[in-house]
């Protein structure tokens, strides 16, 4: 991160994708979910119990299976 650029989307190593701002996310079943907060975390490990949002579950799976 440098200069005048600030990312809207951040991929966290081994963890979720952060989304800044308002978005509508379509989950794997086709359902639409509006973001509810200034920054949202979208699950990338597939194991979250709050799909499509991250709930920290990636920390419970072996590091080699994390995104």
């Amino acid at each position: 991160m440098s200069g005048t650029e600030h990312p809207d989307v951040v991929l966290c190593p081994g963890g979720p994708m952060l989304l800044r701002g308002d978005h509508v996310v379509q989950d794997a079943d086709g359902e639409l979910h509006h973001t509810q907060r200034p920054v949202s975390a979208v699950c990338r490990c597939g194991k979250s119990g709050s799909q499509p949002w991250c709930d920290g579950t990636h920390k419970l799976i072996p590091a080699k299976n994390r995104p």
Partner: protein
Amino acid sequence: MLTPKGRGSLSDIVFSSMRSSSPTWKLALSTLADDDEDLQITLWALYELHYRGFEDVDDSMEWQPELIELRRSLETSFEHTLRDRAPSVSPDGEFAETFFDFVADHDGPSLASHVHKDADHEQVLELLRMRSIYHLKESDPTTWVVPRLPVRTKAALMELQFDEYGCGDPTRLHAQLFARGMDQCGLRPEYGAYIDDVPLEVLEENNAMSLFGLNRRLRGASLGHLAAFEVTSSIPSRRIAQGFARLGLPDAMIEYYTEHVEADAVHEQLAVRTICGSLLEEEPALRDDVFFGAFTCLDLEDRFAHRMLAEWAA
């Protein structure tokens, strides 16, 4: 809120001096704390003068030189205690992964697991009374740090704090969500209502956050504490929410914890990567303090959990 009950010679004399129109500072300054609890309740009340204060203490006491002198003496002693408990060296390696591993490798008793599976109704109400000391001023100790930070860290911290404070909506402010839950549980939702009931461990947890937040030189510890707090929140919050549902607690209290499952899954990434990460790029010398703050957060929660689980014979 009124001044708490004294818990020994020091707190008795300090609280009565704070309330008095002609205080006897000499006696207050020459009195030693009887024990840790006496010291911690005194320190808690001295810090509280910088938050919302007490109805029975004049607002001008916030900057009373003798009380500042006493606060400095007590918090110096407390900081030494905390530093003695912490590892002397912080782990090496790329910061974010090292930090997540540091927290994951810390092994301690879990109140969330007990609440999830075994706690009874009385135990969870007791836990909520203990937690209320912090949750009713949730995020406030960290807000002291904002003006003390470099630009990127300041913006990153405000991004997180904005969410904690309800994004401008007072009904979504986390402390207010907790107050609503307390009310629906039949507990007192007023700020500080249960201060006389909390043990040493809760006072230490709360005082550590104020110590780190109110001293600019400890900004690294404050943000390290924040990061460890956030990293240990999502998964335990889900367990607590499930435990509360098992016990039939009111929806508002369950929602407070459900909100923290998703909010803190975001906040842990922000706190570690954008907040502490940017701080250490600008001020790498603060790395040890970031880990000191993180350890203190985890260690004080362990002490609290040990205390409660022993009391409940769990």
